């Protein structure tokens, strides 16, 4: 009830009062004036080349120095990074030997002893056993189904190569992330230094830092793994800081009273009590690492990502889809397994003492027994060693035929829709953004920042915008903004209604959840090529791909926000005679709006992170710039364009975040 009291909900947000409108009107007027003046002064419309700061040349130069000349006296910088790469290569090779390729022991001369890898049945069996021990029969069934899929659809070998790099990258990401998180928890200074770095790590497209990574760590799977770690680590750092901060004061107090040293406090009190929250970070690291599989395979990681790319290159869509689903299946089983481990209630230590060794260690003993048993058995039953080819399924041609059928029979309808949207929506919007004078846009964004979040936010936003212009990326950035803008609107238009339906109905909720999970883990390249076949190379195809990927947060946050509206408020609204649609429109949606706006924010982030992928279809924006830089090994070009993408993301994030926060305060929710 309190939420609807006068104090909690002001009659009207301040924004709409006449005095509050003045700066907006002013900024719009200046924008319009600049636009008109643009005819006389060309520099208003497009940022002059002569004013461009050669930042990217400086970055490239610095990189060259780092790779060729930087030295610590005893050894060079490059030797240091190469040594690090060698260190990471070791566990990777061990995993590869165990899971995928076995090991040939040279016995001198031409003879060699080939030690085969683990049996597919053994790996599957061991994981199913582990799933049953830490979870329940349902989880065991899921894991069996997932790994069974890998074997039956002939994806086993590639999947094991991918799994090997995940098995190395994920622990490194988790430990590194946790270490940085602990550092940030202990020292405010470290946290302040970390936050902007994390922002950049999450928003700069991966392609942008692949080039420096290749230079420093060499071409090959290790570089791919390092890029994966950079991409997947930030959530772990953030979650660790947050989780440690939210350990209840009572627990800390108790630890202090028990006389814990600083180290004991961390290891015996803080980390164990934050375990559940920390697992959220672990889950994110796993998911993001698997998101990177395709990109990693472009620089030599091999595995499933490589299969997806090669199949699609031959336009064998079905085969690409099968390999893509294999990635999803890996993601789902690893995710559910890690969640089960986190939620497991282990037997208290004082009870364990009474159990025999075998009972206490049943999980591990079982895993070892299954692996060893099948391994030995496989020497007599080759079918256990590698899954027999004649037992594999191939649905590839089915999907190829399906796409061809749609292409031939439904094209005229698709084409009509596409042309209409292009002519009436996409092209005009693109022209609007590209032709808008850059100083005017910067001013408008600054005013928005100032009105929503204060002078500081206004200044930040203005500086970030000007940076994009000064580095000569204005036009490309506007094309990016246009592609993302349109896609976000479309994603919201589709996602919000689905979210509303999901919030109202349990079954819709479950179906929607599973669908968006799949859409997010299925490599976007898999649906990119069929989209190109149906909609041709160009902005429209890019828009569809971005929308499909960015749909997930729109559905999720709407669903979550609507479910979060307190039942008292709904009860009160019902008692005052609201009809169902009034309840939705007048009460639930407005109250869930801040949460939905966070969904918008996430949708924008997703859309921006897809830009680089859509460059693979062919767009002329920042994403393409980053992609070109990758193929030309131009560090400066890639990093600067990448940072521009990051700045677009940060501008959107800060503005929406501030608005959402403000609105929540006005609604008395925060």
């Amino acid at each position, binding site marked *: 009830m309190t939420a609807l009291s006068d104090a909690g909900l002001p009659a009207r947000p301040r924004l709409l009062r006449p005095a509050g409108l003045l700066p907006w009107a002013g900024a719009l007027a200046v924008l319009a004036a600049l636009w008109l003046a643009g005819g006389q002064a060309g520099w208003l419309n497009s940022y002059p080349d002569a004013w461009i700061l050669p930042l990217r040349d400086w970055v490239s130069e610095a990189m060259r120095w780092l790779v060729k000349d930087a030295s610590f006296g005893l050894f060079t910088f490059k030797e240091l990074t190469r040594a690090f790469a060698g260190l990471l290569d070791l566990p990777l090779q061990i995993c590869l030997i165990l899971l995928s390729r076995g090991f040939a022991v040279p016995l001198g001369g031409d*003879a060699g002893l*080939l030690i*085969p890898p683990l049996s597919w049945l053994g790996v599957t069996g061991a994981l199913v056993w582990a799933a049953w021990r830490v979870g329940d029969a349902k989880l065991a069934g899921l894991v069996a189904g997932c790994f069974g899929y890998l074997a039956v659809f002939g994806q086993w*070998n590639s999947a094991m190569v991918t799994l090997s790099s995940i098995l190395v990258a994920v622990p490194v990401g988790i430990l590194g992330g946790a270490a940085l998180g602990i550092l940030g928890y202990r020292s405010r200074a470290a946290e302040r230094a970390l936050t902007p770095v994390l922002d950049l790590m999450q928003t700069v497209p991966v392609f942008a830092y692949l080039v420096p990574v290749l230079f420093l760590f*060499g071409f090959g799977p290790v570089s791919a793994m390092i890029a994966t770690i950079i991409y997947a680590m930030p959530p772990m750092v953030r979650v660790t800081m947050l989780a440690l901060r939210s350990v209840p004061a009572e627990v800390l107090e108790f630890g202090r009273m028990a006389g814990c040293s600083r180290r004991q406090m961390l290891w015996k009190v803080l980390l164990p009590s934050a375990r559940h929250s920390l697992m959220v970070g672990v889950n994110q690291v796993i998911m993001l690492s698997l998101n990177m599989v395709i990109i990693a395979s472009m620089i030599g990681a091999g595995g499933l990502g490589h*299969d997806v790319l090669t199949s699609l290159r031959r336009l064998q869509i079905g085969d690409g889809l099968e390999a893509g689903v294999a990635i999803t299946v890996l993601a789902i089983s690893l995710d559910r397994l890690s969640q089960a481990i986190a939620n497991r209630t282990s037997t208290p230590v004082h009870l364990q003492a009474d159990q025999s060794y075998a009972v206490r260690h049943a999980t591990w003993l079982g895993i070892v027994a299954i692996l060893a048993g099948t391994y030995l058995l496989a020497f007599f039953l080759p079918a256990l060693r590698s899954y027999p080819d004649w037992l594999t399924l191939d649905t590839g041609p089915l999907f190829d035929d399906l796409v061809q059928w749609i292409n031939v029979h439904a094209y005229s309808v698709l084409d009509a829709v*596409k042309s209409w949207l292009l002519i009436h929506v996409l092209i005009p919007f693109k022209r609007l953004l590209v032709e808008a004078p850059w100083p005017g846009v910067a001013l408008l964004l600054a005013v928005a920042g100032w009105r929503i979040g204060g002078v500081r936010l206004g200044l930040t936003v203005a500086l970030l915008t000007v940076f994009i212009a000064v580095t000569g990326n204005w036009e490309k950035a506007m094309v990016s903004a246009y592609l993302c803008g349109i896609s976000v609107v479309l994603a919201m238009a589709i996602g919000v209604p689905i979210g509303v339906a999901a919030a109202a109905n349990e079954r819709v909720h479950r179906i929607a959840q599973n669908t968006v999970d799949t859409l997010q883990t299925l490599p976007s390249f898999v649906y990119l090529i069929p989209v190109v076949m149906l909609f041709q190379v160009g902005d429209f195809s890019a828009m569809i791909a971005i929308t499909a990927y960015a749909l997930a947060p729109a559905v999720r946050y709407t669903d979550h926000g609507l479910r979060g509206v307190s039942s008292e408020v709904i009860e009160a609204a019902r008692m005052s005679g609201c009809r169902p649609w009034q309840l939705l429109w007048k009460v639930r949606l407005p109250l869930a709006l801040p949460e939905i706006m966070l969904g918008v924010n996430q949708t924008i982030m997703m859309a921006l992170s897809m830009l680089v992928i859509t460059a693979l279809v062919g767009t002329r924006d920042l994403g393409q710039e980053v992609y070109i830089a*990758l193929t030309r*090994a131009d560090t400066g070009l890639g990093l600067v364009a990448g940072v521009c993408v990051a700045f677009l993301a940060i501008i959107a994030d800060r503005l929406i975040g501030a608005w959402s926060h403000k609105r929540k305060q006005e609604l008395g929710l925060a």
Partner: protein
Amino acid sequence: MQAAFHKLAGRAGVFAGATAIALAAAPIAAQAQSYPESDDPIRMTIHDWTGQYLTTHIMGSVLEEMGYTVEYVQADYLAQFAGLESGDLHVAMEIWETTGKDALEASLETGDTVELGETGMRAIEEWWYPAYVKEECPGLPDWKALNDCVEVFAAPETHPNGRYLGGPVTWGGKDDERVEALGLDYEVVHAGTDAALFAELQSAIQRKEPILAWVYTPHWAPIKFEGEWVEFPKYTAECYEDPSWGVNPDMAYDCGKPRGWIKAVGWAGGEEKWPAAYQAIRNFDITNQQMGEMIGKVDLDGVPSGTVIDQWMQANRDTWQGWVPAE
């Protein structure tokens, strides 16, 4: 690298079935010989088209037969030069004159890479259209007919201009310049990748719609689909360098694309490390015809690339043994 895994895994299965202790096949090496000079792996680069995958693996198999250790590394066509210069990568089998000439020359100038000779294949890259388009635009293949057929090739994004689907920007090719120099009323839409380019081509052909796109050979597309290359004024070096040459007196690039060699290139340090291997690569020689057949088998008939390579190696034993330098 993938193929290597499969191969090993396959071997493991076969041998493990026969005996509990499996002996890996020994390289078929001649008696006492001067190579391999080093057991360090020769790292060969793999790019994103099938032909290159096949040439690299054929050469790799020959090197393995000679006793070398070979590793295949996925690397971008242009980005690989950085790796070749630093010695992270060692051999790239296919640098096309049409797309990689500038990058190759720049790299050779550093002195860190060496040319490893022509592969024998001849690259053709040009604007291409399916045969049925000729009904709507009878003036083709002459380039002058293109401007009469703008309506045939137009699309909403490019209207009133025609739409030409170019290769990825990273392939170069000077198409934007060509359009301007020849006064063509066309807009170049760059596909992002090889896959996207041929996806659109195939889908247009399935519907029998007009399309004008960048097609190259050796590739499966001109084998699978019936079509023709647009005939531009013939390429000469002057055309690209001298504006006054050709139909447009003020601009260069008023001609077709160069047709030319496909060369192998290697890390300069390898010259001393694996001289015999480098010599064998220099001897590598294969025709468009042979390569086209193999690409067709892999991309159109769905034969695994490993099988195609093994078949070729068996059927052409004399050919590749001729590449191996004498003791």
